[in-house]
């Protein structure tokens, strides 16, 4: 036996080293943020941006109100885009792994619209129910809505220990419809100011978020997103089936519960800030997988980085393309992500 062991060639080399992938994506993310800082309705020189950032970091008020654009508007907005993009992408990757279905996506299976309904409820019902008025009410309600939708879809899609793809997607359609009807009903009963904030984020936008809102939702997104990145090893085992994960000694039920919980809370928090931004959770993990394969230990953090960069790029485009007006970012993510996804699919198909 030992002679065959020695003569066996080494395990095949990785397609790309993890360090290269994560390093490259981190640089792409940083570059997208820098470009985002400079672009917008107000054009600024590098010197002005530098002055504003230095002044902000040293704690003093920006002397020039023009420079306040950087620290009070663009910076929180960019950070929100990074966080939301990362969270949507990593949650998409985790759900696709958990459901063993490359089509699972927070938007597609109803998590986003569930979270949307939760948030709209707080916006509209907050006037009548005072306990819905605290600063945490909106993100919590969104998280709860997202979580509830995730659990319902998950339970419905489960049959005899395996996830049934068709049932899963149908359940998602049903949840989307029900949540949509609920949101419509609440819209009908809303007053003018509620209607404005409602419409504002049903279209999906990272605009209008100041530091205060960002700091409210950021901990939820950060903690859940980072925790999801650590689930790579068990999610790998799920790729061959729940029973394989079980036979390998993983606490399958606990992993499922934790993943669903983290995705629900993270996506809920993201949706509560920006509304429903589709396609990021579906496309980004696919793109990453086509490049580096399906090893979740690398796939999850790489998806988070690419998702963050992608949403920053989309937001920058949304701000500059029709400046001084803005495009809804949800439309842009679909416009950018859809064709790119098709291109990759076709390319991959012809290579075989």
């Amino acid at each position: 036996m030992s002679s065959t062991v020695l003569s066996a060639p080494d395990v095949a080399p990785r397609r790309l080293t993890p360090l290269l992938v994560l390093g490259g994506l981190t640089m792409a993310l940083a570059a997208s943020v820098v470009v985002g800082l400079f672009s917008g309705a107000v054009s600024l020189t590098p010197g002005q941006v530098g002055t504003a950032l230095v002044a902000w970091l040293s704690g003093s008020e920006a002397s020039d109100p023009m420079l306040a654009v950087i620290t009070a508007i663009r910076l929180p907005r960019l950070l929100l885009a990074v966080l939301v993009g990362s969270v949507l992408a990593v949650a998409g990757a985790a759900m696709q792994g958990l459901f063993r279905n490359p089509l699972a996506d927070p938007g597609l299976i109803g998590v986003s619209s569930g979270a949307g309904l939760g948030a709209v409820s707080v916006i509209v019902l907050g006037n009548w129910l005072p306990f819905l008025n605290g600063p945490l009410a909106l993100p919590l309600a969104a998280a709860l809505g997202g979580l509830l939708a995730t659990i319902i879809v998950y339970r419905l899609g489960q049959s005899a220990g395996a996830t049934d793809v068709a049932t899963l997607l149908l359940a998602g359609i049903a949840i989307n419809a029900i949540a949509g009807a609920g949101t419509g009903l609440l819209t009908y009963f809303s007053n003018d100011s509620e209607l404005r904030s409602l419409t504002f984020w049903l279209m999906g936008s990272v605009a209008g978020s100041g530091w205060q809102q960002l700091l409210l939702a950021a901990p939820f997104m950060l903690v859940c997103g980072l925790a999801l990145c650590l689930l790579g090893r068990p999610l790998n085992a799920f790729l061959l089936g729940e029973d394989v994960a079980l036979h390998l000694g993983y606490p399958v039920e606990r992993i499922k519960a934790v993943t669903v919980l983290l995705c629900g809370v993270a996506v809920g928090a993201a949706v509560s800030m920006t509304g429903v931004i589709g396609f990021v959770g579906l496309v980004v993990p696919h793109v990453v997988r086509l490049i580096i394969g399906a090893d979740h230990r690398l796939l999850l953090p790489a998806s988070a980085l690419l998702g963050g960069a992608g949403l920053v790029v989309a937001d920058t485009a949304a701000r500059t393309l029709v400046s001084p007006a803005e495009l809804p970012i949800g439309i842009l993510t679909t416009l950018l992500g859809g064709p790119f996804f098709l291109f990759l699919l076709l390319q991959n198909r012809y290579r075989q």
Partner: protein
Amino acid sequence: MSCLSADKLTLARANRRVLQDVSLRVTPGEVVALVGPNGAGKSTLLRCLSGELTADAGCCSLDGTALRAFKAHDLARRRAVLPQDADTRFPLMVADVMAMARAPWRRQATPQHNQRAVRAAAAAAGVVELMARDFRRLSGGERQRVQLARVLAQIWDTHWDGQSRYLLLDEPTSSLDVGHQQRLLRVVREVLPMGIGVLAVLHDLNLAAAFADRMYLLAAGRLVTQGAPTAVIQAGPINSAYGAELDVRTDAHSGRPLVLPAGRAPYQSPLSGSS
């Protein structure tokens, strides 16, 4: 006493007895075949022995310790399971699939040690040249050999500590051509000296007779008979268990039992009455 055993298992599901008072034993160094008609409870018995299911009555144990008393990852280093269907729609390399097998060892062994185990298992199953391939694009036979390599890697210990290990294979050959069937089961027999005991659900009685040391025949959740292939494969119990008409002969060359379908039933005209 080294063995993986089921002791008087009884299990009901939705008011139907799936297993009734079934006992079974696998010891290191032997291949035990579990045969029986569809729905006899073979897979359920396998899932009890893997620790996946807990029986209503009776108990499964590994080397005298109840499976329930094992921590999941400790048990995973002692027994591996090849399920009927473990495909994926994700782009995994064969090397990725193999690496997963070492998950239960991540606190017990160094990465180098784990890589050595993966390489050794891959060499034993003859899949070394497939390591850089996309798992989804392998042929059925190649895929099943990789799966076998994976479960071998899971229980592979390069510094053998003398502990017994077990492989549970659920219809490992059902989708394979005769050549792949034979190669797969030969690999299984080759690893037996490493202190491995094998329980395999097999549908092909001739294949079972050729590769198993002992057989258990299960029908309707009950154990019909057990023993050496020549003792189990007898026309009486086989035909009543399967509800079939099979001729059982003895192969003059090998002395093994040989099962042949009894051929077409004599033609009866539908007009000739109800006899």
